[in-house]
């Protein structure tokens, strides 16, 4: 059943393509990059042994062209395709086509992708497997007077629990929606909702759904193999989101105690087993303030935020993905998983948090990554590179690891201040502002955090006079229009590509 992999095509770009290729290189595997015409000189291409151009910059004409990717793999003799995340990663048809072409798709079975991709199907499977889902019940159709059978309503309300939302079945945009926190308000709320729904959508059918106020987003990393084993590698809390986009993730979650972690972990493993999950996946939960948790969705791929799990478990998830895809058994049993310390990830976006997170494009005039013990940067850009509007504006992810949460945070704040990016606007200062919030330090994070604490954030003016002083000295060294070059020593011209920093000679011996 085992089928060795010697060559991997990475069907992605940016940091995740670089990340996957690093592990391939350590394992001695040959790597093939694919690229759009905008990316022929991108870092992920320069890391690969071989490169195939897929087409024009638009993802639809390049990274999303599954047939071109498969043709590239066949042409270059790759055994396996790693899809990264996004693009083709959760495309069941592509996964199936890989198998039909004799290629190993590094991910779960196409059926798993399909079933987990449909929210209703996923919810049903999870319910059957005993994994809690957000309680929701359809009410019977209202009578012509707009009244709902009282006994049925009471029974449904009992199942769903308070607080709850009354929602129009065919609605949207908040029309026909009512929040009910007190049982006495239920019947009038349902009747009002039925009226509004009937008027707005021509159908008065409504349903009840448990309302979670400012829940936490807590997900579990799962891993399965072709031999029926499945484990979880602990949780990640991803509550810090702007417009449903995670920007800071951490593990462990400040909200979980060992008992809750064990229960959620068991549910995650049950979810994995329910679909005979193979490879790396993530089970996302909403965690309510009362400690109840509910299945949200399952991501059938490696997650952006996997580095925090790698930092605390010490495992290389890409290495394990490759092993499992080659038919090997999982390298760990559940008891081998012993997360240690605290890890934090910040996503560096080319965007302007002061202007509605509007993406920013341009040339990276300065781009230097911080380093040091406990600091990891996963990036897919380089100084001098162009940030274009074609792709996701995430430039890099920076992760820090420390013995305690406090240590990981102080390490991250120090690293963000040593992360100069000039040429595009980034969210670096904003990320630091989030970390500086007392509520963040206290671990009081939920999906409403940014709205509650940073809605009115504007960039700090910082020490503007100091910046001006630095600027002035730089100006005197390279006055406008003069292309003089000042190099490290300050006294010699730089001779790239030769790096001849001066005349210097060692005596030969003998």
């Amino acid at each position, binding site marked *: 059943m085992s089928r060795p992999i010697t060559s991997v095509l990475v069907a992605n770009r940016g940091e995740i393509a670089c990340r996957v290729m690093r592990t391939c290189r350590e394992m001695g595997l040959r790597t093939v990059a694919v690229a759009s015409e905008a990316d022929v000189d991108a870092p992920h291409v320069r890391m690969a042994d071989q490169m195939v151009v897929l087409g024009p910059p638009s993802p639809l004409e390049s990274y999303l062209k599954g047939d071109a990717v498969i043709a590239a793999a066949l042409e270059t003799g790759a055994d396996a395709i790693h899809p990264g995340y996004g693009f083709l990663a959760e495309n069941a048809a592509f996964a199936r086509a890989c198998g039909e072409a004799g290629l190993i798709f590094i991910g779960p079975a196409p059926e798993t992708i399909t079933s987990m991709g449909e929210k209703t199907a996923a919810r049903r499977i999870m319910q059957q497997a005993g994994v809690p889902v957000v309680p929701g019940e359809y009410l019977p159709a209202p009578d012509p007077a707009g009244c709902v059978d009282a006994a049925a309503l009471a029974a449904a309300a009992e199942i769903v629990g308070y607080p709850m939302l009354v929602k129009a079945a065919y609605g949207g945009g908040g029309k026909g929606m009512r929040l009910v926190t007190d049982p006495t308000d239920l019947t009038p709320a349902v009747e009002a909702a039925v009226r509004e729904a009937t008027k707005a959508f021509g159908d008065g059918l409504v349903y009840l759904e448990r309302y979670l106020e400012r829940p936490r987003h807590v997900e579990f990393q799962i891993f399965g193999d072709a031999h029926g084993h499945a484990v979880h590698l602990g949780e990640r809390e991803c509550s810090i989101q702007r*417009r449903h*986009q995670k920007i800071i993730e951490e593990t462990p979650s400040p909200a979980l105690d060992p008992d809750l972690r064990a229960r959620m972990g068991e549910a995650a493993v049950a979810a994995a087993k329910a679909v005979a999950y193979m490879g790396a996946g993530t089970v996302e939960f909403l965690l309510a303030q009362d400690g109840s948790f509910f299945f949200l969705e399952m991501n059938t791929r490696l997650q952006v935020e996997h580095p925090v799990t790698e930092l605390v478990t010490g495992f290389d998830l890409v290495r394990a993905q490759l092993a499992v895809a080659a038919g090997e058994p999982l390298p760990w049993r559940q008891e081998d998983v012993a997360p240690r310390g605290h890890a934090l990830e910040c996503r560096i976006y080319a*965007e302007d948090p002061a*202007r*509605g*997170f*509007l*993406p*920013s*494009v341009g040339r990276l*005039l*300065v781009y*230097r990554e911080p380093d040091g013990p406990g600091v990891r940067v996963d990036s897919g850009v380089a100084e001098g590179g162009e940030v274009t*509007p*074609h*792709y*996701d*504006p995430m430039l890099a992810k920076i992760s820090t690891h420390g013995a305690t949460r406090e240590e990981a945070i102080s390490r991250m704040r120090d690293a*963000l*201040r*040593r*992360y*100069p*990016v*000039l*040429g595009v*606007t*980034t969210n*670096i*200062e904003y990320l*630091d502002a989030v970390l500086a919030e007392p509520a963040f330090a206290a671990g009081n994070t939920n999906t409403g955090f940014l709205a509650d604490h940073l809605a009115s954030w504007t*960039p*700090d*003016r*910082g*020490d*503007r*006079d*100091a*910046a*001006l*002083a*630095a*600027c*002035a*000295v*730089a*100006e*005197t*060294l*390279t006055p*406008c229009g003069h292309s003089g070059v*000042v*190099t*490290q*020593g*300050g006294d010699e011209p730089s001779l790239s590509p030769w790096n001849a920093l001066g005349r210097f000679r060692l005596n030969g011996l003998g």
Partner: protein
Amino acid sequence: MHLEFLDDDRPRPCTVEQTGTAWTVTLAEGEPWTVLSCDDGAVDLLVDGRRGRAWVARRDGERLVFLDGHVHVFRLAGAADDDADEVIVAGGPLVTADMPGKVVKVLVSVGDEVAIGTPLLILEAMKMEAEIPAPLAGRIVAIMVEQGRTVGQGELLLEIEPPAGEPT
């Protein structure tokens, strides 16, 4: 050496003097600054008795500085900007597209009064939707785009008329 920068529109004269291997920068007000070294994009200087490292870049007449997590933009006074005629002053009455994208929704109508930050329209670019907030308070006097329209970088989207007497 004497230089003049613009901080927004405020003139900021600077005097730079080399002292041995370091530099002293005198601004119009405050204590002089000591700059310790300057190479490969990095400028080290003393800030409150501690060493700070600034990173600098140049983009036409603009000077960009990263210092301690903050980004500062200055302009060199009198510097030629090759695209100067295209530059639209920030805070002005014309709202342009920062980047190519698609108009998902126009949220205001001509005649609406908007406050600073009022969402004007939703633009989809780089796989994400972004709300374009009003850069100044005033009345919408013109909307140049409609839903579904693809716009190029720098394309005019809207015009806002500031209240009478208010500087733009």
